[in-house]
């Protein structure tokens, strides 16, 4: 076989090809791998976050309990001490649960439907306060740091719902009708500022020509959640 330029060229190409191919295989070794899908990764990640959450809860608990135990064990009058601790805890929990009357500075918001409409107006639904409007105003307030909120006397607690029942809105399973008076206790300036932000729900309501009034107040009284609730489904887990 004669070696001409063409053959040599072909040979070098072949060698180069081989080198690159092997380098390829070397950089990507075929080790036994788990088949990793994005979904699986998401699931694992979620599990990890949940575990971290649980651990942080447990660490906090342990710290609290150890302190409590030390206090109990070191006190000479144990009954007194236990009673005091329980009383303090009860006060905290009452505040936290929203079952007691509270007062403090905050804002008062009045929202009413727009009644100056023409019956043939296409935007008539815009002139009505919907349950979602109230819901998002509540969350705007909560997200701005409101510590207690009530709508027409209904205190917002963890199980409060805001639903649409045809022409009427229901909160805490009680009917409420316009005008809506939303009370919130928190930093009055912060709450007022949050309500007047361009992307707040209140701004949208004003744009839809509903009647809206926001007043900062030095002292607002909000009554507690007043209906007795007996849990049917939840049980303390061991």
């Amino acid at each position: 076989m004669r070696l001409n330029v063409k053959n040599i060229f072909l040979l070098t190409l072949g060698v180069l090809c081989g080198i690159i191919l092997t380098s390829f295989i070397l950089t990507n070794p075929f080790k036994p791998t788990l088949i990793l899908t994005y979904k699986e990764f998401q699931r694992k990640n979620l599990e990890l976050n949940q575990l971290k959450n649980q651990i942080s809860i447990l660490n906090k608990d342990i710290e609290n309990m150890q302190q409590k135990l030390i206090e109990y064990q070191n006190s000479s009058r144990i009954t007194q001490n236990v009673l005091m601790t329980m009383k303090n805890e009860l006060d905290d929990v009452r505040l936290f649960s929203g079952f007691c009357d509270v007062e403090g500075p905050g804002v008062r918001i009045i929202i009413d439907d727009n009644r100056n409409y023409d019956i043939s107006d296409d935007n008539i639904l815009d002139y009505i306060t919907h349950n979602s409007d109230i819901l998002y105003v509540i969350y705007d307030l909560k997200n701005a740091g409101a510590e207690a909120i009530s709508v027409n006397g209904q205190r917002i607690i963890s199980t409060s719902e805001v639903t649409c029942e045809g022409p009427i809105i229901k909160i805490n399973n009680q009917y409420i009708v316009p005008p809506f008076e939303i009370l919130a206790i928190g930093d009055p300036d912060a709450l007022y500022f949050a309500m007047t932000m361009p992307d707040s729900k209140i701004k949208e309501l004003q744009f839809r020509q509903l009647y809206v009034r926001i007043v900062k107040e030095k002292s607002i009284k909000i009554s507690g959640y007043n209906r007795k609730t007996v849990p049917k489904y939840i049980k303390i887990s061991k």
Partner: protein
Amino acid sequence: MNNRSSQLWIGFICVILGFMVSYQLRYIKTPRYQYTTRQFENLVKETEDLKKQRDELLIKTQELQMKIDEIEKSVASSNKVASQMKEELDQLRLLSGLTDVEGPGIEITITPVNDLSNKQASQVYYKDLIDIVNELNSAGAEAISINDERFVGRTQIRQAGLSIKINDSKFDPTQPFVIKAIGDPAILEGAFKMPDSIIEILKKIGGFEIKIVRSDKIKILKYNKNLEYKYIQRK
């Protein structure tokens, strides 16, 4: 000999070579896949470690709780005021989300699907979560958690930059959200069957994999943050 065919061969090999070189270069240049196998292995290992740690802590809390209960019970048995207070405390804690609870209910998993078939990035919005919580509450849920963040009276659900903040914990909106609720499973699930419900709307928009599972034993963790009250006072 067939001069043409050998030229074709050379051309063919050149093409392959070019492809491989460019592929190799690209492979080196681009940042590695976001999730490599090694990262995943670390994830699995970390999960295992944390599980062990959690179990140890769990045992420790149970021991401490037993000791405290013993002392409080002994006081409560001899003191009427104490026993009343303990009863009210337990009741309020259960209602307001300060205890781990379990019971029948549903678990909703919303997984944003971000693969090649999507034109737009799919993500959960905080308002979707607010709507879901509201619908669960209107269906009579007694306890709700989102990604193990217990929903309590003051729970904030809001956009914070690119993430969603729930109870001041940050969550990536492109990752799955698991919402658990305890109540009548049939009613809770039924609340999302209405054509206008938030779950149906999300299904219509597309880009989500939504699973609702009924269960007799849903476990919901308690609220885990310290809340400060600066403005409200008890009357």
